[in-house]
Structures are given as C-alpha cells and as structure tokens.
C-alpha cells in the first residue's frame, strides 16, 4: 500500500468521513474534487465506488480519510446504521441556489446527532458557489458540478441543475444565514465550489484540525488493526483477535464448497 512507502504509517490516522445531503447538491463532486486535486489518480486503491480514500497532511500527522458516499440509500430514508458507525467526521452538503436543500441539511445534522458518535466533527458545505459568481457562470454551460456526479447511484436523473445565471440572483441561501445556523449548531462552515475547487481542501483540513487525533490513535493502538471501524478501545487480548479477512484470502479458498 502506498502509505507504507511513505514511512509514516505510525502516525497515519484513519478517519471515517460520511457525506450527507439532498440529491444533486454535489456530494460526490465535492469528494472527487478533494480526492483528485490533492492527489494523483490511481495512487490509492479504493473499492468500487464504495468509498474513496485520501490523505490529508497536518503538521506532523497524516490523516487518511475513508470517505463514504450514501450510494443513494438516503433517497428513501434507507441509510443503514452501518453508514454512521464510527464515523469521526461528516460533511453535510447543501446547494446555495436551493433554499430547501439547507432545510434538508439541517435534518441530516439532526440525524447525525441522533445516530452517530457523540463527538463526530460535522462540517456544513454550501456548494455550487460558482453559480453565483459572475466570473464563472456566464456561459450557457453553467450546470455546475451536478453534471459531474460520477456515482450513478447518487446522481438523480430528472433533477435539473439550476439554470445558469448572471450573478447573485441565483443564490437562495445567504451566507450569513447558513453561517449563523452552523455556529449555533456547532458545525464548521464553508461555501464551496466543486467545479472551481474553491473551499474544498479547506473543509477537509479544518475537519482534520478538529478531529481528536490523539484519542483515535490511543484507541487504534489498543485495537491493533487500523480500520476506523475497528477503533474503539478494545480489551487487552482483543488485539490479535481482530481479523482482516483479506489477509489470508488466498489460502484455503472455500475448502469445502460441497
């Protein structure tokens, strides 16, 4: 694995980050921007489109984000508890050109507070900033990043992107309003554009600063195996009991599929 070569595995901390937000606000695009911008493609192996991984350097620490997309399971309120389990961070995305998407974001924040770790770090991201910036939205092709939804599962057909416009007139959520809500709810807040990249890296860096790394490290050390799902303070002898199924995957395969 790539990070073994970087020689910093001892300081690399895995952080499970979940994405939430209404369909077509650009959840996947925010992540893809982050993942491809910071890092050359094809470096980190990921699993299908199931989750993406990306490292984030922070002073002497390296965080390895394991970023989970909803895979569309949020559409009919069918997200599994597994999705929230051991998530140390969440990015809740809304579309600044759709007021309703902020309301939806608020309900996701509530859901996180109900379902997830009590000390999860939550960032609120008002996406599609490019649509309200005159410089970038004058062309007819102003569909912003909703077209970039690479994950079929989350791309919602029929949900037309906001039409291109001149300027701030498209904005439906004032920055101040969202900022005030975020402050009140104790969330990090950013306005972003997955299309131009504005604000994207900042989200992940600020989350990284807020994550209680020492705490996670301590928990992971106790547990041995470096999956975020496995972090959580194990009893002493559990160390050798946590199992990575891939490790021996080539050994006796289905010895008795009779």
């Amino acid at each position, binding site marked *: 694995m790539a990070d073994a070569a970087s020689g910093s595995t001892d300081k690399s901390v895995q952080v499970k980050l979940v994405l939430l937000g209404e369909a077509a606000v650009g959840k996947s695009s925010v992540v893809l921007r982050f993942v491809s911008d910071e890092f050359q493609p*094809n470096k980190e192996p990921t699993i299908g489109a199931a989750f993406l991984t990306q490292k984030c350097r922070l002073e002497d620490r390296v965080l390895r984000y394991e970023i989970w997309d909803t895979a569309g399971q949020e559409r009919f309120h069918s997200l599994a508890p597994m999705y929230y389990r051991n998530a140390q961070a969440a990015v809740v995305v809304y579309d600044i050109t759709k007021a309703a998407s902020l309301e939806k974001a608020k309900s996701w924040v509530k859901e996180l507070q109900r379902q997830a770790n009590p000390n999860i770090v939550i960032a609120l991201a008002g996406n599609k900033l490019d649509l309200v910036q005159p410089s970038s939205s004058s062309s007819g092709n102003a569909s912003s990043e909703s077209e970039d939804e690479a994950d079929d599962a989350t791309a919602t057909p029929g949900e037309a992107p906001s039409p291109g416009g001149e300027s701030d007139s498209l904005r439906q959520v004032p920055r101040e309003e969202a900022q005030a809500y975020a402050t009140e709810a104790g969330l990090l807040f950013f306005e972003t554009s997955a299309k131009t990249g504005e604000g994207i890296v900042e989200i992940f860096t600020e989350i990284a600063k807020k994550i209680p790394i020492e705490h996670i490290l301590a928990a992971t050390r106790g547990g041995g195996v470096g999956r975020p799902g496995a972090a959580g303070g194990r009893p002493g002898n559990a160390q050798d009991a946590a199992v990575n199924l891939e490790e021996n995957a080539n050994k006796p395969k289905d010895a008795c599929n009779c």
Partner: protein
Amino acid sequence: MDNEGNFDVIVLGTGLTESITAAALAKAGFKVAHLDRNDYYGGGEASLSLDEYINWATQNKDSNESTSISLSSTDALPNSRQYSISLSPSVIPAAGPLITSLVESGVSRYGGFRLVEYISVYSAAENKVKTVPGSKEDIFKDKAISLLDKRRLMRFLAFASTDVDFEEGPELQGANADLPFVELLKTTFSLNQEMAETITYALSHCVLPSDKALPALRRLRRYLRSTGRYGHSPFLIGHYGSSGEIAQGFCRTAAVAGGVYILGKEVTSMTRKRTTDETQPTPMYTLTLSDFPEPITCDLIISSESRLPATSIGDIEDVRRIPSVFPDAGEEAPRAVARGICIIDQPLSFATRQKPSSSEGEDHEPESPLPVDTGILIFPPSSLDAGIASAVTVLVVGEGTLSVPKGKWIIYISTPLSTNLSVSPEQILKPYLDLTLSFSAASSSTEPPIVPLLTSFYLHTIPPSTMPSSTMESASSLSPTILIPPSPANLSLPDPGDAAALNAEATFWEAVKVLQKFRISRKKTSDETEDEVNVEVERFWPPVPNEEGDDEE
C-alpha cells in the same frame, strides 16, 4: 422508457440470503429494487439497538405469548445505540462460502471481524466448564488427556479432516452407517464418553444423542478446515451483531452498484400482467407500496416466503422455490428455536489461567479465571436433571465484538425444538441461563451470582409454508417469475451464514436465467440497443477493481 420505477428485479426482505442475492444481481448489471417492510435491515437476522430490541420484544409479546422480557431497570442500560443485539446470533466458519462471498464482493472491507476466543463445554459430572482445545498443539499440551486418548483423538481428527468421502471408508460401513455419531466415536474410535460428547456437541454441533454420524462428520470437517485460516479459532464473528451488519454491507454494495433501497414500506398490492408472453415490452409485475407515490414494476420477484403478499400466490406456475443447496441441513430440521438474550455487567469465565511462569512442572499453582470476551459454551443433552433432551448453545459476546459498550456482555442462549412443547422458551432456557451466570470471572464463592440487567426469551419460528405442499414438487416451473430462496432453516450456530451465501448464489443463477430470457425475447421485438440487452454474467462476484482512479471523469 427507462423509467425510474422500472426494475428488472424486486427483492422483498433484507435477510442475509436476499441481501447477498441483491448485491450480486446489482453487480451483474441488473436494475434492482430492494424492499423491506421493516424500517431496519436484516429481517429475522437483524442487529437491533437496545431500544429497538425492547420495542421488538414488546410488540412480539402482544402477538405471541412465548415472548418475555424483563429489565432490571432502564437506568442500568444507557447508551442504547451501543448495543447491536442479533435476532439470530451465529458465528462464521473462517473458510466457508460466506467468508468467500465477503472477500470477493468487497463487503468484508465494510465491517470488522474477530475470532471467537473460546469453545467450551459443560461437564455435568464435575459441574464445571472445560475449554475445548483449539489445535493439535493444544491437545498435546493438555495434561488432562492421557497419552493413549491423545493418540485415539489424533487418529479420529485425521479421519475427520480427510478429503475422501466418509461413506467410502470402512469406518462407516455396515451397521456403523446408522450409528449415532456419539456411539460411533465410542465404538469405532474408542474414545471415552467425555471426549465423544465434546466432539459430538461442542465441535460438530449435534443437538441430540441420536444425531447421525455422516452429517455430523461433514460439519466437523468444514469446521476443522477453518481452523488456522485466520488464527487459533475456526470461527469468526462480525462486529455489531454479525449477520445483521453483514446484510447491511451487502445492501450497501448493491446500492453502490445502482440498487435502490426502500425500507419501512408495506407492499399493498401486487398485480401480474395477464399474458405470459415475455416478448411483450410491459413488465410482468406492478407493485404499489404504502405511502409511496409511484408504483414500481419488475419482471422478476425474489422474496422470502413470509414477505410475499399473500394475495399474490395464486399462480403456482409462476413460482419457483429454490431448494436449499446447503449440505447437511438435516432433513427433519426442527421448525422452531427457543432463544434467550441476557445482558450482564460482569464477565463470565470459561477457562482458568495456569500460571505460565514455572516450566513443565506440576500444575498445582493457583488458577485465576480468565474473563470471556467472545466464547461459545455448549451444554450437552441432559446436562441438567430436569433439563431438555437436546443440547443448549450459549454464545457470549463482549466489547471485542463492538456490539456492547465497555463492561457489558450479551449472552445468547438457544436450543432447537423438534416438537411443539407446551412449555415456554423461558421455562426451557432459564435453568441453563442461571447455570451459565454462575460461571463468573469473579469466581470466588463469596461473590454474589451475576444479576442480569435484561433477560428476554422468545420462540424463533420458521414460518410454515403458506403454499400448498404440492408446489414443493411442482416447484420446477419452466418460466418462473417469482423465486423463493430457502428460508433460513434453523441451523447450528456456525451454519446460517454459509447457508445464506450458498443459497443466495443458487438464487442468483436462477434469477440470471429468468432475466436473460426476458432480455433476449424483448430484444427481438423492441429497438433497444445491443448494450442494453447484453448482460453477460460469468461469475457470482465479478472481480473487485483494485484501482479506481477512473472515477474522476
């Protein structure tokens, strides 16, 4: 025309078998909708939070008097969400079809697993728990076994792990073929009573003294081959309640491959197209759901029998039951299991630590009880004077399984019921639970026994067939449009997951056959492009791509 509500296949129920099937079909490129009337995943194999469990048991109690639940006080059990209580607890053999499916589908990366630390057996003669040696080295080191017995044991284990068909060898010829397993061990392999019982119940998971040798040997062989794959123990257990969490993992994989998930909705109607002409472009079935705006359609329905809307089972020629392909499930498999769940806040102990310091010398050093995080304890039949005739299985899970908060343990206790008993699950299991609770890690007799924080019992029934039994035979409809996977029969503790994986694969291939037929016949009549028609399916799990940089397009 590719409407959002049109699917190739609708899967009803999110039990493990259905979830694995849905994931494989979605990965093979079919449009899958996966529904469950519950608002949680896993059906009868779900992992529930403590509050969810209490709700479930309370609701069950109203409709079924065999369910009972008693809580010491709700204050004693905060952090409901930190519990994952399995409605159908099981362990997973380290080398079997479920682990293969988990690895090959990539679902293993969603979840964590740990080894089961202890396999132990209760000895009525000595009123104590004995740990079953996990490996050949352990047997060699075990001072309680005489040299002669060790040799006999080794001879038997070599036989049990052979590649040759057991029926071929002389051991199972003639009268031996019909001997109960425990008797065969005593006569043919000259094992003493205690060893024979330990092998029969704790290793082979037999239930009755009359259980036959051949299925028991085949089970044992599977478990023996699992030993050493990931470590000491043949068995793994998934974090967060195992099968319920694993089902969620397969569902997520299905969703990532484009599957649509709708939970908490009842199917209110299901109508079938009049004609059986597959060349018609209209879909076979239209389903309406409670509180759901649009009807959804599909050509094929896969449903556990209990989930299929009763009104829809009219056309028998549409239905194909997939026969179970899991070996040795036992023909006269009982239809019900008595189950108990108990939460405690002090550890149990199934083993004692022998002071490691002094070398091979005498073992009269003081023994200190080792707390159990995860372990299996078997009560052989008739362990208790007034007990039942079948073996009772206990599974203890602690914090290491991430299914309880620190300092709490769940005890799952169960026994299969072959006949309708007039006694309640509580009456059957309570004495065994009490005995289990006496094996406290605190151990000194002055300590008070462990007081449970929650105790609950229920009867887990395998729903009886709602279809005329004649369909069992005629279940080979030539062009089925409803597939019914085998229901999770009540298998021994290590088997439900492997059975689900094998049966899901069988269901998957049946479904592919049906769906291909629809595609090919429609191709002739419609102007769909080649791409839409051609779904080539070569494997149950296509290779998981290793590098996914192409996502960024």
